[in-house]
């Protein structure tokens, strides 16, 4: 089974987000960029399907292909995926913001050529927080989808996926080929070992452009302004539970 995993390069999740003073966007200059955490979980799961881990039979996946859409530097994100254990990478070079709809179209073109049996994506990127690419890709391909996965059990021609939904867990069966998006609890990604980081440098990365794939990536939405969130004023410190209850009564919330 061939598994394809798209990965996104985003601002490292440990870093503080700063809005540019002129409101034109978020300042990313000279900041560390990393693989989107949900995408890292997706790569880890695909590699476990190959190695035989996380409840998967060894060689359940025969090949794991990582795909990234982004600037030249997204090669680093692909190397990261290759160090975790993906076999080869595909970079679709695109500068600036590429919206989930355009990403889904680019991925569809890659999938039409690669014909994977399973595509695993992160449920959302921690920069634009859209939570849309996996579902859009499934629609464009007319494939079934299992989003927000916390457990994947592969079967003959299908996957049983446990999904994290409001109020609990839901298990569904999807026919393959299918789209799965990962939630936080699916697995804990490994730290890539130094030998694997070295090995990853020799793995092939194929570079394409949106034009090669025949996709128009012009944004559909226009961001008019970017602002800091409204700051909440710090209130007061109370000295005791009695004083706290008094204040809550005054505020009319108890």
């Amino acid at each position: 089974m061939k598994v394809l995993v798209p990965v996104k390069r985003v601002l490292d999740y440990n870093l503080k987000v700063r809005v540019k003073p002129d409101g034109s966007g978020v300042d990313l200059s000279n900041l560390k960029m990393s693989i989107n955490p949900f995408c890292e979980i997706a790569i880890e799961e695909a590699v476990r399907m190959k190695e035989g881990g996380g409840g998967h039979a060894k060689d359940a996946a025969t090949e794991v292909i990582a795909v990234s859409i982004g600037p030249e530097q997204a090669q680093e994100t692909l190397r990261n995926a290759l160090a975790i254990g993906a076999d080869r990478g595909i970079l679709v070079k695109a500068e600036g913001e590429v919206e989930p709809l355009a990403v889904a179209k680019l991925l569809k073109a890659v999938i039409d050529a690669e014909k994977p049996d399973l595509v695993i994506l992160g449920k959302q990127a921690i920069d634009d927080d859209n939570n849309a690419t996996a579902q859009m890709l499934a629609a464009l391909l007319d494939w079934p989808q299992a989003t927000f996965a916390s457990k994947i059990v592969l079967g003959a021609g299908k996957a049983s996926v446990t999904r994290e939904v409001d109020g609990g867990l839901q298990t569904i069966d999807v026919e393959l080929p299918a789209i799965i998006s990962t939630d936080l609890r699916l697995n804990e990604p490994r730290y890539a070992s130094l030998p694997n980081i070295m090995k990853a440098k020799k793995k092939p990365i194929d570079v394409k452009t949106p034009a090669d794939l025949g996709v128009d990536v012009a944004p559909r939405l226009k961001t008019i302004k970017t602002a800091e969130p409204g700051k909440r004023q710090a209130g007061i410190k109370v000295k005791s539970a009695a004083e706290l209850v008094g204040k809550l009564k005054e505020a009319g919330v108890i």
Partner: protein
Amino acid sequence: MAVLVIAEHDNTSVKDSTNKVVTAAKAMGGDVDVLVAGANASAAAAAAAKIDGVRKVLHADGATLAKQMAEPLEALIVPLMANYDAVLFPATTTGKNAAPRVAAKLDVMQVSGVIGVEGADTFVRPIYAGNAIITVQDTQAKKVITVQATAFKAAGNGGSAAVETTAAPSGPFKAAFVSEEMAKSDRPELTAAKRVVSGGRALGSSEEFHKVLDPLADKLGAAVGASRAAVDAGYAPNDYQVGQTGKVVAPELYVAVGISGAIQHLAGMKDSKVIVAINKDEDAPIFQVADYGLVADYKTAIPELMDELGKAGV
């Protein structure tokens, strides 16, 4: 302009989030219809018809819609969009699952997790876990939008719209429901609760978490939430998680016990009306957003608080 709101419901009643999304839809101007897609959901359709400002309710009923899965919702909603300029989904796991599928079929980029409507085509939404807020203009002919319901006031229930039946999709579909395990609780649902009591890593164990927070929540009639750190440590189930990667809540009263206040947690609760923080570390970031901070060990503070609430007749 005509806007279709996708109802959040359990086949018998309509969730409050539907009323809130109707408010967001009305802010865009034009007519607002509500779609109730379910199985044996006549009661929910009747409830939706009572929401103020709704022109009519579309009711699609069939076995394929029992679990409101993405594929049948797409098959149902995409053809309906011939009659609408925009479709609004509550940003629940059901809405987030289906909306992008509808958008892609319509060749539309979706506007996700909207917290403000500034006009027919201008919307406000958070990015970077709420660390930045963007205003976006969507001039596409059809608009697909998910709405963070907690950011809007609920429309009232004094209306009497007509209910129209529309056919449910027949399938077959390539995804099939197998089972579900829903957390059972007598407490209010986290995202709809007027009061929320949340615990953090400081609670130290699952046993302690429940021993300390459950009685307080019961006394206040509150839902119980948790920080991601507490969930990751196994002290609380995953569906308790309040934060950007969990649930976004905006109750009248939010009590954070032993929560340090990581950015990701604040993103999920900072719109609460009154925030109380109880933490023994006076430098904890949670105090920067709390209306009332009590620097104390929860072990002594919570029993005292229980006593004082009792004395105050709560």
